């Protein structure tokens, strides 16, 4: 005999492209942007190791309209990632009990978003401090 055969509800083949699953698909798609940005940085690092000429070619690629459009898309996806990441966070972590009361989920989301905004400002300040 074979094992249990769970009932699988029939689903449209492209269910992920339609609401309500579309929001989930878009959230997961931010991962493509996060990995894509890492690939751009890795390409820069490899070119850096190859020498000045290769590295300057990478810097020139960054100046191309294609790259600027790509990074604008990355930026939008990153902001979407930040927003959704802190919506999920209270759902994936243990309940926080402070003084015998459960901390509301939207407080945790708000705190996460506030820290993310502070980190954004701090990184820009560090970059300003690193200016030649």
């Amino acid at each position, binding site marked *: 005999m074979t094992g249990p055969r769970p009932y699988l509800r029939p689903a449209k083949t492209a269910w992920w492209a339609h609401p309500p699953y579309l929001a989930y698909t878009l959230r997961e798609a931010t991962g493509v942007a996060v990995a894509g940005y890492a690939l751009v940085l890795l390409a820069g690092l490899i070119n850096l190791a190859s020498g*000045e000429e290769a590295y300057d070619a990478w810097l020139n690629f960054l100046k191309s309209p294609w790259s*600027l459009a790509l990074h604008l898309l990355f930026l939008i996806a990153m902001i979407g*990632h930040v927003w959704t*990441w802190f919506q999920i966070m209270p759902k994936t972590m243990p309940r926080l009990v402070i003084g015998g009361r459960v901390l509301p989920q939207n407080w945790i989301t708000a705190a996460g978003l506030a820290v993310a905004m502070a980190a954004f400002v701090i990184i820009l300040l560090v970059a300003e401090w690193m*200016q030649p």
Partner: protein
Amino acid sequence: MKRSVAPVFWLLFGAGGMLSAFTGPALVLITGLAVPTGIGVSPSFMSFARATAFAQDPLGKLVLFGVIALFLWHGAERIYLTLRDMRAGGRLALMCICYGSASALTFVTVGTLMIIGF
């Protein structure tokens, strides 16, 4: 009981997700938009000499490795889970493609940082 390897990938996914939530938007804005257009940044901000000095510094190496590797693992986990839910292929094949590329590129990152030296 057979142990699952999923927690390892979840840990990398979570670490990459947290790091990118805190640093991603600012990094993309600086390296991908401000530096190429020269808006608000000196033209020599990411020059060959400065980028080399940054990549040779142990702290700079840690930043580059952390950002590149953890961002890749975060993306790989999301892409794997989504493709699995879309039934885009066999579970094992998708795992090999997603985790395999993330592992290979992590090794490339370490190797490149070593080649750049200290």
